[in-house]
């Protein structure tokens, strides 16, 4: 018998129907203890405990314990595409006695406990566990062990279930789940039932996200009802100042304050009770710098002065969510913009800039302006309805992104590797090459962009046209041509081809093209 939480994850994993998933979640919430519920929320919102072991240790121990040679274990792993599942499959039938039932809280406590053990003790403990758990629980347990646990549904479904369970608005639930909290010190009641105003200063609001524009821009109605801005290619952030403390959150709900001390110092001049929504960019002389510079900053906590000077950053603010400690989200965008302009004068506020408005008479002029996005170092335009409130999550209707078409180039498929998850055992991860002095030079990897049907066809091609195998990677006959799209390009000393692409992906399969007709590296570099 599986534990309730394992059944829940299996049901979520197995079903394609949103309603089934919400139903399963609700059933679990209605019966679970508060600590189990809190851990469930933590897992759904990416608050996993620290992983107690690494994948290499796990492979070695599992091969040993299952009595097969390491090479055969690797063969199995190659087919399954997932360490946690491979182990579960190898052990499932060996469990002959009573299966062990652990609650979600107990499992999480074991994860925390294991961190403190020596390697030998961990090994001994896991060998025992692998034999005691049923297949699905074993799989999930292993996922927690390696920190690879991902739930195949959006946080939105959990919010829906919690909203039904607690009979509270889903926007409020979303808000309550944000920010820094961990199940090790928070309680279910403290997180979801206590007075919102009493919650921590650092708690951000849920971000409002846009949809790509559908159809003709004219269909949005009168241009006067819309606010147009550049769509910047940076990181969406929320800047909070409350009780003399400043917090910077990324859209991925990561607290990145420590990475940007200069912004923190600057933002301390803001009045208390201020929350700004904006874009974090590498920025110099009133213009954005390449995204790669920003990337250097994101990966570094407590950066040196040298790095701060080499990669200067700024926030382009475009919305005001809290002013004087009062939630502004239900006010119209125009009202919020007025307050924002009061706070940050249009001629700048140093490291916090005001996102400029693009004011034109009609849609035609805006359409022309959009074509200048690249020279403005923007990805396109944002269109926001002036009368709209600040909603939570991705919603259609009031916020649209209108990106410029991606740059693209035709390239040849040269390497393929099996995917993971849904695509395990299919060759879905590809490396592409361009012609360079008569040879094919790899320049980009891409995973997405093909239909399921096309994936099967390419998979068949790879299996039948393998030239060499290097571990999980196969080199294939250079024959298939794909159109690769990307958002940006810049020089890179780290890449052998000399350039790095931003967001490369497959736009379409050029079945009409022969490999000789693919583009050259020189042609790619012309786009620099």
């Amino acid at each position, binding site marked *: 018998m599986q534990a309730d939480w394992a059944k829940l994850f299996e049901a979520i*994993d*197995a*079903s*394609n*129907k949103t309603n089934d998933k919400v139903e399963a979640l609700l059933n679990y919430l209605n019966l679970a203890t508060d600590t189990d519920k809190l851990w469930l929320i933590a897992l759904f919102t990416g608050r996993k405990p620290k992983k107690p072991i690494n994948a290499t240790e796990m492979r070695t121990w599992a091969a040993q314990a*299952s009595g*097969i*040679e390491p*090479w*055969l274990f690797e*063969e*199995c792993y190659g*087919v*399954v*595409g*997932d360490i946690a*599942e*491979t182990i579960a*499959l*190898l052990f*499932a*039938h060996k469990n002959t006695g009573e299966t062990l039932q652990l609650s979600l809280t107990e499992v999480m406590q074991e994860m925390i406990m294991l961190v403190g053990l020596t390697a030998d003790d961990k090994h001994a403990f896991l060998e025992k566990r692998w034999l005691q758990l049923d297949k699905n629980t074993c*799989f999930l347990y292993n996922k927690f062990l390696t920190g690879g646990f991902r739930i195949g549904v959006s946080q939105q479904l959990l919010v829906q279930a919690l909203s039904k369970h607690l009979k509270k608005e889903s926007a409020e639930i979303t808000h309550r789940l944000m920010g820094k909290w961990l199940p090790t010190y928070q309680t279910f009641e403290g997180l979801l039932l206590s007075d919102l105003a009493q919650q921590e200063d650092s708690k951000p609001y849920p971000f409002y996200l846009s949809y790509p524009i559908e159809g003709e821009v004219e269909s949005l109605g009168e241009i006067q009802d819309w606010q147009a801005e550049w769509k910047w290619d940076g990181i969406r952030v929320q800047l909070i100042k409350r009780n003399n403390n400043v917090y910077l959150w990324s859209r991925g709900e990561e607290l990145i304050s420590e990475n940007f001390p200069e912004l923190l110092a600057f933002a301390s001049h803001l009045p208390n009770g201020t929350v700004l929504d904006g874009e974090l960019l590498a920025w110099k002389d009133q213009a954005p710098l390449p995204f790669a510079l920003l990337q250097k900053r994101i990966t570094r906590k407590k950066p040196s002065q040298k790095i701060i000077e080499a990669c200067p950053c700024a926030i382009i603010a475009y919305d005001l969510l809290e002013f004087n400690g009062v939630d502004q989200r239900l006010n119209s965008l125009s009202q919020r913009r007025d307050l924002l302009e009061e706070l940050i004068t249009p001629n700048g506020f140093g490291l916090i800039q005001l996102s400029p408005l693009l004011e034109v008479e009609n849609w035609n002029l805006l359409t022309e302006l959009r074509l200048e996005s690249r020279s403005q170092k923007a990805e396109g335009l944002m269109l926001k309805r002036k009368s709209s409130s600040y909603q939570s999550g991705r919603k259609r209707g009031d916020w649209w992104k209108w990106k410029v078409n991606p740059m693209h180039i035709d390239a040849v498929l040269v390497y393929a590797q099996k995917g*993971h*998850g*849904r*695509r*395990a*055992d*299919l060759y879905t991860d590809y490396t592409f090459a361009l012609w360079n002095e008569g040879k094919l030079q790899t320049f980009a990897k891409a995973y997405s962009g093909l239909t399921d049907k096309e994936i*099967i066809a390419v998979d068949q091609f790879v299996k039948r046209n393998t030239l060499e195998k290097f571990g999980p990677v196969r080199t294939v006959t250079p024959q298939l041509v794909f159109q690769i799209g990307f958002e940006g390009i810049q020089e890179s000393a780290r890449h052998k081809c000399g350039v790095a692409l931003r967001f490369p992906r497959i736009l379409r399969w050029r079945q009409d093209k022969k490999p000789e007709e693919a583009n050259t590296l020189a042609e790619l570099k012309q786009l620099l």
Partner: protein
Amino acid sequence: MQGFGLIQLTAKGLYCAEGDFYIDPWYPAGKAIITHGHSDHARLGQTAYLCHPITEKVIQHRLGLVQTETIAYAEERMINGVGVTLFPAGHIPGSAQVRVRKGSETWVVSGDYKCHADGISEPFEPIAATHFISECTFGLPIFNWKSQAEVMAEMNQWWAHNASMGIQSVVFAYALGKAQRILNALNPAIGKIYAHGAVMAMNQTLREAGVKVFQAEGLSDGTKESLKGSLIIAPPAAAGTPWMKKLEPYRTAFASGWMAMRGSRRWQSADRGFVLSDHADWKELNAAVKATGAENVFLTHGYKSAFARYLQTQNYNAFELDTLFEGESLNNKPEEEATHASGLG
């Protein structure tokens, strides 16, 4: 041409030169001994087909009028001085292993096989051999089947749950073999059981060959009311086609050994996956190889490189053969593609 003695691998398939016959050739070749009726083993274009009587009916149903001759299990037939005998392979009704012997050499070609009872096929029988040509579709230690009773209990439970909500249960399984195996093991007390046209036709063919197959109802007799809470069994090719429309509301499930892996389960985007295979799992493959007493083992379709290497560590002379057999495939077999349009109405 790869030669190992009595049986060779040629471009057209496994061939016995001394007897001048092929076993499951994949191109028009000549005289053919057929292990079973699946389309990757019984192909059109042979001058004569020698097989088990059940397989004969299947071949005639699938390939039309071809020249066939039958042979019962365990009966030895001399062909140009070579002794040929069929033994049950336990894969599907009528499936056979082929023993070919002359002098000191005894070869067994397994065809597709499984070693656990499925309630419909004659159970697999281990045969002594000097050379064993084995399939190994599931030749990795991650494949370990639960008993049919356990899997069918899960399926019946799933069906009963759906039925209690007034929802139909659609199970996708090969029209030949897997479908009948499931039909015979479902609990008819739960509700009505329907079958897709391709399955109905195959049921009839097998019945004519003397196989007992549960009497499922044809979908043309189904009304919205009678379909409610029923179970419908259909070939994999019917998944996601407009044919499904009339069955709404429903939940879907695949019954296949590949369902052991989460990745393939999700790839099929079915609501459930039941791990039910007509091929041998890791334990069965190892037991079958051992039981033949063969020193030389040749592996055809499946994880043959890994299984061959493993057998080498167990002191067998193990080799991979490059054949065109497919084993259990999640994609459609041609026979099923051709017939999937029929069914409702």
